[in-house]
């Protein structure tokens, strides 16, 4: 694997104004939250909401913008003896990992102020996973649309769909079918959405899980079990992998 390009793009992104301001922005929020709540658990819960909202949005939109902005350079690179797969993989890995690093770095102030805990480590892990997943989705929507406006528009729609509409539909289904046993259905459905999965995995680790009562207990049984852990990890990996594979497939057929 040729890592010249990956190395270059990665460092280029790390010192880019956008990635730095993203990290600083998150750092300001996490420092603020940690300072005012002064309690590791409360900080984790508040930051969880911030992470679930911001990380997918930023990864999707910045991912798309970056993809379009890099198009000319990508075209230039492809005139060199290097395969499309290598270039695409380099772009994806560089962007996803620099966004992950920015997200994790942005949460570090809370870690310093409130101390380390397994919940917080988990939060860092979720932030990094969501960065990878939504960068992949951004690349998919961008490689499918040659027009920048449409690509970014599609990214925003993907975000709305996954962080808002999906949940609304699930709530609606739960209410409509409340007479039926729904636990299994809900577990499957939430595992299908990485944002929900991240939220539930963290909630179950905090004392908010006590509020989930008997319903929560069955979720906890599942997600706490080895099978549940494997299923969650599998779902997250698939979410990172499948959009990436579709995107690379489109990219390989693209005409510049």
């Amino acid at each position, binding site marked *: 694997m040729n890592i010249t390009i990956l190395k270059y793009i990665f460092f280029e992104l790390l010192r880019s104004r956008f990635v730095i301001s993203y990290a600083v922005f998150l750092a300001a929020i996490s420092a603020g939250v940690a300072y005012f709540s002064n309690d590791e658990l409360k900080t984790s*819960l508040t930051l969880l909401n911030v992470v679930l909202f911001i990380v997918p949005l930023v990864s999707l939109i910045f991912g798309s913008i970056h993809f379009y902005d890099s198009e000319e350079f990508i075209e230039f690179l492809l005139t060199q003896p290097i395969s499309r797969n290598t270039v695409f993989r380099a772009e994806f890995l560089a962007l996803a990992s620099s966004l992950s690093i920015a997200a994790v770095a942005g949460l570090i102030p809370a870690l310093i102020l409130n101390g380390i805990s397994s919940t917080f480590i988990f939060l860092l892990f979720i932030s990094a996973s969501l960065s990878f997943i939504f960068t992949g989705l951004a690349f998919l929507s961008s490689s499918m649309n040659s027009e920048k406006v449409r690509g970014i528009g599609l990214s925003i729609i993907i975000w709305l769909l996954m962080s808002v509409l999906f949940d609304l539909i699930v709530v609606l289904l739960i209410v409509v079918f409340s007479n039926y046993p729904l636990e299994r259905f809900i577990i499957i459905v939430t595992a299908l959405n990485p944002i929900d999965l991240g939220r539930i995995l963290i909630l179950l680790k905090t004392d*908010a899980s*006590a509020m989930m009562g008997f*319903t929560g207990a069955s979720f906890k049984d599942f997600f706490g079990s080895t099978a549940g852990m494997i299923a969650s990890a599998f779902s997250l990996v698939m979410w990172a992998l499948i959009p990436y594979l579709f995107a690379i497939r489109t990219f390989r057929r693209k005409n510049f």
Partner: protein
Amino acid sequence: MIRIRLNITVLLITLLTASVAGSKEITVCSTCGVTTIAQALAESSDGDVIILKPGIYKEHSLTVANRIELRADEGAVLDADKKGPGITIKHDSVRIAGLTIRNVDVSYINDLSAVMVDNVSGCVIERNVIEDTFFAIYLAGSSMCKVEGNRIQGQAKTESSSGNGIHLWKCSAMYVADNQITGHRDGIYLEFVSSSSIRGNYSGRNLRYGLHFMFSDSNSYSGNTFENNGAGVAVMYSKFIKMTGNTFKNNWGESAYGLLLKELYDGLLEDNLFFRNTAAIHVEGSNRIEIVRNDFIENGWALYLLGNSYENKVTANNFINNTFDVSSNSSRNNNFYSENYWDKYKGYDLNRDGTGDVPYRPVSLFSVILEKSPESIIMLRSVAVDILDAIERVIPSVIPETLIDDRPKFTRYSNDRDKGTS
């Protein structure tokens, strides 16, 4: 309250005068003439004082049948060695102080206890240390007793194999104060108890309830702290209960409450702090309770009122950082909310009178959905739920029109109670 104090004063005076008039002292120690408590009790007569010197007394199943005073020096330990109960008091006006009692075994047939008070009037049980016993202090059919300053520590593992810390059954005019109770089934248990006062106790890490009231009218409890109990505090099937200045905190768990009120009538809940409980107050079939000037901070549910509760008044409380402020399973509102401070209030106060100009709706749409379909708790803290709640607040459609605080306080009521929130 005043009546109880008076009773106790009278009792103490009686005790004192009795000991002056022709009573004797019996000293018990390993090198004394009397070496066992049983022997001392057998030799005693009304008005005597038994002084227990330091040492471990391996005795059990003792009975106090005379009006005596048992005064233990520090280091005097009654070790029942898991062979039977500790001391049973069967005479009025007995005092037991400063004694350490240990190792009363679990029994599934008898309510074995360290100190059993059986049908007497006017006993004093104070400053004792009770460790590893099934029941610690068990009072039955008695009145005008004082249980004060005892340190009670159990090793309860399961509800069925453990007893209560201070257990009162069919008692009246009792005074239970400043005790520390941990590691039992219920910290303090009252059944058919009336006109009694429970104050300044600490009840924590008990398996079931920190305090458990049943069929006990006209009692008050104040200034107690209930912390980390399996299910919090339960007050059930009682009338005229005053609950003031207590702290209910960290009662977290899938079925834990800060305070469970079940079929309670005409109670007063005032100046209490509810901090980090799954449900701060769970109200079931209870009427005419006044919930005034309490702090509800960081609870899952601050108030959970079932639809069969009527005419309860919720006024001048602080609601801060609770996931749900008010929840109900009913689509009708039968209770009254006014002048509370709600941190989620988004209104304004144009005329600056300290009261918000638009009413506050303390029930969120999500809590209503949750009532219908408990499974939707899976969406807790999701963006979609915030949006739903926001929409319902702007265009109310599901939540009853009358369920409002029409005079929401604009700024938080200040008191120094949040010192307890750490």
